């Protein structure tokens, strides 16, 4: 049959549903837990959640996070407690979006949005600073000029909350231990993580 075989495949595919999309005009919906660009969250009262503890930097396998803490100003505190994240930088040339920083964060301060389309023209722009990562006054991530945000990508930035026991107990049922988040309030903990599928 020779080359006609090839045409047959082509012809058959003409009538099948197309899997390709007109990217970037069209985009696929992203899963809730997609690991995209980070955001630094605020509490409902506008205080920053980050306490500058550097656990994210400590756990980061790519060593892309640089944090330095500082004493909260007494009359105008940035975060609750003694310490706040004074410097917060993520180098996106290094970040592998593994989400270990989110795991490590004791205050749910750093989470990831679903944005992964952002590009830079020089190395310095790839370092996101605290101002760029912080959510704005209504709890939404800042949309920077070089980022391609689409509808819904800034929602559920903290969509995945861990529900594991400190000691690794499988039967552990999480309770909401964190405060409300600016723009979102208190979210229920994610259920259904027990090995037996229980917990709902």
């Amino acid at each position, binding site marked *: 049959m020779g080359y006609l075989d090839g045409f047959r495949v082509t012809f058959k595919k003409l009538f099948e549903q197309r899997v390709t999309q007109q990217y970037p005009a069209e985009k696929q919906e992203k899963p809730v837990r997609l690991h995209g660009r980070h955001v630094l969250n605020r509490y409902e009262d506008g205080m920053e959640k980050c306490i500058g503890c*550097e656990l994210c*930097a400590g756990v980061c396998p790519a060593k892309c996070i640089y944090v*330095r803490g500082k004493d909260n100003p007494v009359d105008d505190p940035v975060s609750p*407690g*003694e310490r706040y994240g004074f410097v917060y930088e993520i180098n996106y040339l290094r970040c592998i979006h593994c989400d270990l920083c989110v795991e490590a964060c004791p205050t749910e301060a750093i989470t990831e949005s679903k944005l992964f389309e952002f590009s830079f023209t020089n190395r310095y722009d790839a370092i996101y600073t605290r101002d760029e990562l912080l959510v704005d006054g209504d709890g939404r991530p800042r949309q920077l000029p070089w980022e391609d945000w689409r509808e819904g990508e800034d929602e559920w930035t903290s969509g995945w909350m861990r529900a594991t026991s*400190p*000691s690794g*107990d499988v039967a552990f049922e999480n309770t909401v231990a964190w405060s409300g988040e600016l723009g979102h309030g208190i979210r229920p903990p994610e259920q259904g993580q027990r090995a037996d599928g229980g917990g709902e």
Partner: protein
Amino acid sequence: MSEAPADIEITDPVTITLDGRQVVVQRGALLIDACERNGVYIPRFCYHPRMRPVGMCRMCLVEVDTGRGASLQPSCMLQCSSDMVVDTQSDKTRKAQEGVLEFLLLNHPLDCPVCDRGGECPLQDQTVGYGPGETRFVDEKRHYEKPIAISRTVLLDRERCILCDRCTRFAKEVAGDPLIDFQDRGSRTQVNTFPNQPFASYFSGNTVQICPVGALTAEPYRFKARPWDLEIVESSCTTCSVGCRVTIQSSRNQVLRCLGVDSDPVNWGWLCDKGRYGVEALNAEGRLGVPLGRGRSVKTDDETALEEVSWAGALRTAADAITSALDRRGPEGVAVIGGARLTNEAQYAWVKLLKGVIGTDNLDAQLGDGIPAEIVLGLPLATIDDACRPGSTTVVVSGDPKEELPILYLRLRHAAVQDGVNLIEIGPKAGGLTPYATVAMHPLPGELADLVRAVVGGGAGGAVAGVDPASIERARSLLADTDGEMTLVVGRRSLSEDTGFTADAVSVLVSAYDKVRILPALRRANVLGALTMGMAPGVLPGRVALAAAPDAYSTRWPALPAGRGLDTTGILTAAAEGRIDTLILLGADPLTDFPDRDLAERALAGARNVIAVDQFVNDSVRLAEVVLPAAGFAECAGTTTNIEGRILKLEQSTTPPGTARPDWMIAAELAAELGSDLGLDSVEQIWKEIAELSPSHVDLTWEMLSDPQNRDGLVARGDPLPGSVRFEAPEPTAHRALDSYSLRLVATRKLYDEGTMVGRCRSCAGLAEETALAMNPHDFERLGVEDGGRVTVSSKRGSTVIEARGEAGVPRNSVALVVNAPNFDVGTLIDANDAVNEVRVEALQSVAGETGSEGGS
């Protein structure tokens, strides 16, 4: 940081059963130490090997059977005895450990993410290792006000405190400053200071280091970094000359903190706050990173500001200045003061440049505030351990070690309190050691030698130098019991008194007792290294006398000085008289540190060219023609020599700012600019040359110094060798008889002053106290002065109005002032050429009017 017990030699072995195996341990050793030496770590919080065990935390409970059945016993309290059966892994032990940890965590807040201790916290580590998985505590935790400042540098968070008694025990037992203690009882027990009495101890930083939780944190390091950020190297502190072993911890090329390392012969893990926080000066504002120079190289226009210049230009200027001095006056026209800050290698490089290339002997590392080099170099040296050997007798003829060499003070204090060492203190006035000294004598300025003669020879039995006969008699009997073997801690007692008196006193003691060893109490970082390397007139590297220089020097060095040069006082006098063309300041600030302010000012004005090598622009550097920026502590590798002659490695932790260079490199490049090759191109290679040339370093190879086994350093030969500098009994220094109007001036140091480095260390800068005129209250009436009243003090050099304060420890007929105090420069009263400086004190009428008109002057 390690708090592991020191290795010991087992002299009285007993066999115990440890977790089922037989091990041989020292009888009477603490079980907790014996287990750790045998590889079994027992968790603990309150136990610290350098302090008395108290058994408070109960974390170290283990099941022990001493023949009366197994029971839980605190291993930090239990001494090893034969046939002990110890089970550190039994169910009972594990349950006790879990129980104690659960108790400790009940009220311990979950501050770990914001706590400075998080990541290096014994409580965290041991909770992971020995604690229960989860807590059963559901109630409200104990609450206190979050950190309260208990001193300028220490913050206390009582919520985090687990009441282990380490800080309070340290303050009471080790430092002797019992300013913090437990208050309240039961679960409301807390550590705190007494009302309105801050924890103002020179050693307060140690409590932060030994705190097993983050209850005590250091303000200077607060939130600066997390443990995993830190790059750590082990080095030696060069704030003073005790040479405490430290770890330098840096992050992002910035030194953030220093922690003490337990070095058995030296600091036992302790540091003073000045050393601990002194590293802040490295990053201080005004740190020099580029060479500075003037628009024109000849000092014709003082208004020309110092501006940044290139290294090539700066070195050219400096070399030109030296060349022109050589042309005009020969080698004697060049003089150098300073150099005690440098590493041994840099000192050797500079000495080789100055004595071997330029050929001048006008070189002195001490700024007229030390003691004659012959005392240090011409007599056998002692170690700190010698001075603290249990049961021995140590004579202290120096300023107050607590103010000048704080860790030496801690060691001597421990020796006197715990080990029965008899201290005979012959200080300028009562100081830190006085309460612990068996005999404390405070002779009048100028009468030190008379007192020592009375002690040694026995006198008429009356008071000598204002010291009561009973003390003299007691000192005599103590010394008589020593078999002539004693350690003599000798330093500069007072800056307003000639060192000739000290030399007299030393010669009296040395001739009376045959086994006297010297522990120099000189405070500048590497002053021992400087003197040993030849940074004093008439000395060549290795304690060698210039007059008896062996052939090795003339063959390996291009030149040698023609004869003995001048010391600092001589150099400054010559400069003031216009006989010094080029004066090089090697990290020296004579305008602040030389005792005689007037002479220092005239000298700097009189020198044609001043070249400064320094880290900051201070008062003296401001007058320099050219300033070469030097690398500081932690910025260059090398070695340093402490007061015992111990050679300690210095490691590089960060890079110097800008283009600042290590001092030895500056010497080498200056030599190259002068057309000579020093042949020195690395620290290691310089050391090799030192070890080949210097008789006192002959056995010390770089490999030995670098060996981790020798991290406590190696003591260079401290005995006089053939050809060494000799200590000759000097002509007795004369002093005038006291007239009834004048008081003799005592000028002593405080730990915190306005020096170049301390003043730039943020945590220490504000701690310098204002000085008052301290005088014996018995003199008040005679002079018509009131305690707290204002008086005029005048010497032949100047006068000032200052507050008078009664201090019983000041000898009668003398007055004491503090050097480098923020409110008054005592140097303006001192004439360096006077053996004893005398002042007159007059009460200001407005304040002391009522006390009557008799007395006064």
